[in-house]
């Protein structure tokens, strides 16, 4: 598995390029999530959610880690931009859409690399703690 920093560089390099960019960016986003899942000692799923492996990987990665939901919409927006580019191509809009898809993928990579760097980082996120913890009062 190559370093996340290398993936980030590749995301930046393909941002403005044409034809294969949506597939490549989607694959890179999946690779980012594979890092997170593998680091937790699991095998990344090959399944799909709503037609996207990315969303299945996110669901797998968030299992037992509520703070990982903070990147849920980022993943969904990546999938949405992929759909826009592939199902509703528009010569006037596609360059901007590709750029935005790359920025979303970068955001996902930054978010995951932050969590990878500092073990337990999510515990500091307000949405991360289970709603009920057993404590004596």
């Amino acid at each position, binding site marked *: 598995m190559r370093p996340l920093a290398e993936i980030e560089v590749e995301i930046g390099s393909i941002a403005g390029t044409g034809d294969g960019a949506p597939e490549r960016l989607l694959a890179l986003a999946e690779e980012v999530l594979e890092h997170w899942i593998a680091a937790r000692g699991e095998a990344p799923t090959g399944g799909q959610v709503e037609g996207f492996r990315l969303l299945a990987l996110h669901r797998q990665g968030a299992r037992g880690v509520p703070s990982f939901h903070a990147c849920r919409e980022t993943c969904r927006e990546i999938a949405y931009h992929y759909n826009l580019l592939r199902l509703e191509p528009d010569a006037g809009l596609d360059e901007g859409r590709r750029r935005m898809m790359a920025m979303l993928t970068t955001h996902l990579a930054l978010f995951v690399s*932050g969590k990878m760097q500092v073990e337990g980082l999510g515990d500091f996120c307000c949405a991360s703690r289970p709603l009920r913890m057993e404590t004596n009062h």
Partner: protein
Amino acid sequence: MKAEYKRVAYYPGCALEGTGHAYNKSTREVGRALGLELDEVKNWNCCGAMEVKNVDPKVQTYLSSRVMSIAANEMGATVVMAPCNGCYHNLKKAEHDLAHDESSRAVVANISRKAGHETYRAGQVETIHALDWIKDGIGEEELQRRVKNSLKGLKIANYYGCMYTRPRHIFPEKDQGPASESTSKPHFMDDLLAAAGAENVDFPLKTSCCGGAHVLSDSDTSTRLVLNILRAAEAAGADVIATECPTCHSGLEMHQVRAEKVLGEKTKVRMLYFTQLLGIALGLAPRKLSVHENVSDGLELLKEKGLA
């Protein structure tokens, strides 16, 4: 429109007395201009934010419940408005816990008794955000009617942050159809600023993490996350990022400066609270809305756009 939003108990929270002072000031001024009344919760306390919650979530539930108890039992309020995403989130979480978890109810009852005030019971008040307050207290049509200084020509990326809509289950009123707020694509701020004449740009990072909670533990990650948000806003064509949370706002402003200093990456998009933007549209002076208190210099941009 909801008549009960015309006069609400106001819970500013700690941030609005410090780094978010401009948000506090502009919220009060906009309320005054729109005829929406605020009764500040008496002797309010910290909502428990992140610090207490990380040590003991049930104590956080108690702290938030005390605020709601004062509003309900000492002020007779039925609605509490919290403009800070952190406070709003914590009060909502406390409401959820008290409605669904017996042990949380027992802890809150126990500490409330020791503290000598009435125990808050789930459902006594409705907690809302400043966005709900204006959207459902006044509405876009009325707001549009009152605009004196249209924001026309101002391109805005609306940034909601992650706590306004997460986790979904503590916001049962959201995702209830087109008129309600969406947890995946929030739009209340977009709606209000569009009514004020602004042009909202398509901004897919509107709920992305700004790294706000990691500022002290991992500043570099926060800076890079913010930088990506700022760049995306600029790529979307925005002049301004509108905010509705003091933590997000401070994070965007401070990491914009830090990104330039540490990474040599300069961005020029400006940050303004949505209440400051609405205030401008309502004809209030920027100083009255504390625009001069922002780190990010919005005044220059407002002048450039003929709005100040």
